[in-house]
């Protein structure tokens, strides 16, 4: 797997530091993401993994550091702009729209691609309807891909946890992102569900060529599917490299085995 060829660096983070008040969450983190790879961020609870994702898609603005996206240094951006740059994500604590059906949740993921005006939507005839059907087709493909046909019209609030995670993945996919940020997609799942999810992640990467940035606790899964791994601990960056490199890094071993610093 490690022999795969990756494209150029599309996302480059240099010297990122983030604090909330006196609390330093990220301290001088630097790594990059290449086109088409599966990039994982691991580390114990409170290591700053989710904050890292939040920095990438613009929810948090780091006090120091530089983010280069597709060769351009990114200015401080608004939260909703990330999606426009082709960055989609899922969340550690599921952030679905609970009052809406599976179908609608995933359709919402395509909001940026829908262009018809409010007036056209109000009349729901001609262009707006055609657009709606086109996107529906796309969404049905995603539903087929994720094997969630049976829950198409169920309000997501009523779905079991594992299914919700899947719908959330579907919503992110619907945006046809270049980079997909997955925040612990397998947390709280049983082995079977984890296998399913791993398969989906790999398939997405394979079939659509989507670059994936993944946070995951399960070491086995991470080491299995990742191309490169970056390790954080209390906001510090411990290691960065292929799974093999990371696995043999002494700092990482200490941190994970709980050797006191």
């Amino acid at each position, binding site marked *: 797997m490690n022999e795969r060829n990756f494209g150029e660096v599309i996302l480059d983070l240099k010297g990122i530091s983030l604090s909330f008040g006196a609390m330093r969450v990220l301290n001088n983190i630097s790594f990059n993401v290449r086109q088409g790879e599966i990039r994982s961020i691991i580390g114990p609870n409170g290591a700053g993994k989710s904050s890292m994702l939040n920095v990438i898609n613009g929810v948090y603005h780091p006090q120091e550091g530089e983010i280069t996206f597709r060769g351009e240094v990114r200015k401080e951006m608004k939260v909703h702009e990330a999606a426009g740059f082709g960055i989609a994500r899922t969340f550690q*604590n*599921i952030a679905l729209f*609970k009052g809406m059906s599976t179908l609608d949740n995933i359709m919402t993921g395509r909001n940026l691609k829908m262009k018809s005006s409010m007036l056209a939507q109000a009349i729901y005839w001609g262009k707006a309807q055609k657009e709606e059907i086109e996107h529906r087709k796309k969404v049905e493909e995603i539903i087929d891909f994720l094997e969630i046909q049976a829950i198409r019209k169920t309000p997501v*609030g009523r779905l079991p946890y594992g299914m919700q995670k899947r719908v959330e993945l579907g919503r992110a996919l619907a945006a046809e992102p270049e980079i997909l940020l997955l925040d612990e997609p397998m947390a709280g799942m049983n082995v079977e569900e984890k296998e399913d999810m791993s398969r989906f992640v790999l398939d997405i990467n394979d079939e659509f060529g989507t670059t994936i940035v993944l946070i995951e606790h399960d070491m086995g899964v991470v080491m299995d599917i990742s191309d490169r791994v970056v390790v954080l601990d209390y906001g510090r960056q411990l290691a960065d490299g292929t799974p093999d490199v990371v696995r043999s890094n002494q700092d990482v071993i200490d941190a994970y085995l709980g050797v006191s610093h």
Partner: protein
Amino acid sequence: MHDHESAQDNLRLFRWRKQRVNINKVKTGLIAAAVGMASLVAAPAVMAADGQFVGSLVYRTGPYAPGGIPWADGFADYINLLNERDGGINGVKLDLEECDTAYNTDKGVECYERMKGNGPTGMPAVMPLSTGVTYALLDRVVADKIPLITSGYGRADGADGTVFPYVFVPPATYWGGADIAINYIASEEGGYGNLKGKKVALVYHDSAYGKEPIKTLEALAGQHGFELSLFPVPHPGLEQKATWLKIGRQLRPDYVLMWGWGVMNATAIKEAAAVNFPREKFIGVWWSGNDADMVPAGKAAVGYKSLQFNGVGADFDVHKMIKTVLYGNNKGSAKSVDGIGEVAYNRGLQSAVILTEALRSAMGEFGNKPMTGEQVQWAMDRLDITEARLKDLGAEGLFDPIKLSCSDHQGKGRAKVTQWDGKQWKAISDWIEPNSSMLRGMYVESAAAYAKEKGITPRDCK
């Protein structure tokens, strides 16, 4: 709103099951309710058949109930008196039905629509007892041919009978009231000539009702050279400290007039006391002169004055009659006999007198049977309640004679000034007549504007 969301899924499932159990019960209830509501279609209650139906819109509940209850009692007592003593009017029994509006416009309209077709001939006239309901009924009464009688409220330009054939505003209007108040102030000051340079403030409920007198007062201020200052009080008027600091500590006017409503009245009087404004120079319109408004003001209200379009007290013959015939036989409407004679009660009496006298004169023309709205309108157009007639009714001095015509739907429009002595109102002036020629012009002008806007062709009263 989604704080506990994630923790709740289990609970939700549990609840959902519980709901399923309850559904049957609920469905039965819903069906019952639906059947009940559907039967509304067939509803308009079948009343005792052959009497004259009298529908009365009252507010015995809600925020303004303290003033509405005595009015309703007075109206009901007079109707019941005629029934008990005379067997109705000319042998036609009066079937009184009350409908409670809680002073809510929606409810008032519903009451009117519900009752307008009751009895053999429908409602002979409607007295909505609320500005909002009055406005909402203006179109409807024309279509339904039911006279709209607004005694001392509603549209002042309803006095012009050519544009408003179905609206009657006896015995007085707000514009007339404003003129009377200034007239009274002038007499206190020793003539209109002395008004020049005087400062008069108007404290008013910031609504259609409260704004009615402004135009008249502005015209009078121009004429007589006094300075008019306006102080709107937002509905409902629970707080007026700022207003009264401005009046009492800054402007220091010679007189304050008030177009207040409900709880606003007592609050204003208390705040006037709080800035030491003399209550003797503080004059309210009739709706700021209910006994119920003076009660919460307590000692602060002593000396406060109010216009009234009826006399005050409980010692007129009609009161005595009501006491013996009704309250003697436990048929009175008020909780106790003490309620008789409150000004609002007397106003209710007066409205009942106007309606029943119109019915009587209509019967004189069309025969002794229940009258339709159209027939009562005919009678209202030529209503003439003379001094002598009032004497027959035992209300001489209690009410001012009223004479209406096709074009004049108000009458003389006179009112008295009364003063609160801590327990009751005392009349301190005789009937004061407003400046009819000026007001008449204003009524006609305003009515013409209304007619133009609504596309109404005024009727010919020649």
